[in-house]
C-alpha cells in the first residue's frame, strides 16, 4: 500500500498574506453591498489593506493580497471572469504597477496619501482603458471621465488618510502570525 503524501510547506509569510487577503476580500464584499450613484464609483476600501501591506511588508506581499482579493472577491460575488472581474483585475494590475515605482518616492515628502491617490488614479486609469478598448466606445467614457477621476481623488485621499492613521496608531492588537491550532 502506497500513500502519496504531498506536503506544502506553509510559511509565516503565507499565513500573513492569507489573513490580510481575507481582510481585503471582506472589505470588497462589504463594499459591494453599498449602493453606488454611478456604476464603478466605489470607495475601494480593500486598497487600504493593500497599501498597508505595501508599506509594512513590501510590494510582493501587496501584489499577492491584491491578486487574491480580486480572485476571491470575483468568486464570492459570483462574477468570476465576467467583465466586472476583468475590470477589477485591470485596475489592480495598473495600480500595483504604479505602486511598484511610487514606493520609492522619498518618504520624507510623500506619505501614504500620495501613494493612495496615485494608486487610485492608476486603478481607474487601468479600468477605463480596458473598458474603452473592450466594452464601451471611448466617446461615451469621456463624459464620465471627470466623475471617475474626482472619485479617485476623493476616495484615494480618504483611504490614504486612513492608512496614515492606522500606521501612526499604536497597535496593541496587531497579532503576529502563529500556526493555526487544529482542534
Amino acid at each position, binding site marked *: 500500500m502506497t500513500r502519496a503524501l504531498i506536503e506544502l510547506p506553509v510559511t509565516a509569510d503565507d499565513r500573513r498574506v492569507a489573513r490580510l487577503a481575507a481582510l481585503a476580500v471582506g472589505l470588497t464584499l462589504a463594499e459591494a453591498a453599498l449602493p453606488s450613484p454611478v456604476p464603478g464609483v466605489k470607495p475601494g476600501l480593500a486598497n487600504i489593506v493593500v497599501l498597508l501591506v505595501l508599506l509594512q511588508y513590501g510590494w510582493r506581499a501587496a501584489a499577492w493580497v491584491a491578486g487574491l482579493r480580486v480572485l476571491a472577491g470575483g468568486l464570492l460575488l459570483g462574477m468570476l471572469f465576467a467583465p466586472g472581474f476583468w475590470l477589477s483585475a485591470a485596475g489592480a494590475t495598473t495600480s500595483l504597477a504604479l505602486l511598484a515605482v511610487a514606493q520609492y518616492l522619498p518618504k520624507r515628502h510623500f506619505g501614504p496619501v*500620495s501613494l493612495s491617490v496615485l494608486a487610485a488614479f492608476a486603478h481607474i486609469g487601468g479600468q477605463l482603458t480596458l473598458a474603452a478598448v473592450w466594452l464601451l466606445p471611448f466617446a461615451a467614457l469621456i463624459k464620465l471621465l471627470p466623475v471617475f477621476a474626482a472619485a479617485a*481623488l476623493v476616495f484615494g485621499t480618504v483611504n490614504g488618510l486612513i492608512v496614515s492613521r492606522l500606521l501612526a496608531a499604536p497597535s496593541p492588537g496587531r497579532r503576529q502570525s502563529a500556526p493555526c491550532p487544529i482542534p
Partner: protein
Amino acid sequence: MLRTGDWTVLASGTAIVAGLAWQAWLAPGDAADTAIIRAGGTIVRTVALSQAQTLAIPGPLGITRIEIAAGRARVQADPSPRQLCVRQGWLAHAGDAALCLPNQVSIELAGRSPAHDTRAY
C-alpha cells in the same frame, strides 16, 4: 499627517480632475458650418450658416420658421403645442439638433468632421 509631496500630489490630482471636467463638459464642440433641415424625414434644405436668412418649412401642422444668423441657427416659430424645439434656442455646435416632432421638421448642424450622435454594439 500630510507632507509637502502629498499636497503636490493632491494639487495635481485636482488639476487633472478640473482639466478633464473642462475637456468633457465645458469645452466648446466643433463649430458648425451648415444646417441640415428635414421635413417628414427627408432633407429639404441644406444651408450654410454664414448667410443670415429665415426659412419657412411647411409641415402637417403649418409653417416652421427657421432663422439662421451669424453661424447659428434656431427654430424661430413652430405650430407645435409644447414649443420644445423653439425653447431650445440657438444651436451653434456640430451635432446639435432641434426637432419639432408634431410638425415633423428638424434642423441639425453639421461641421467639417461628421460627429457621431450615438454608437451601439
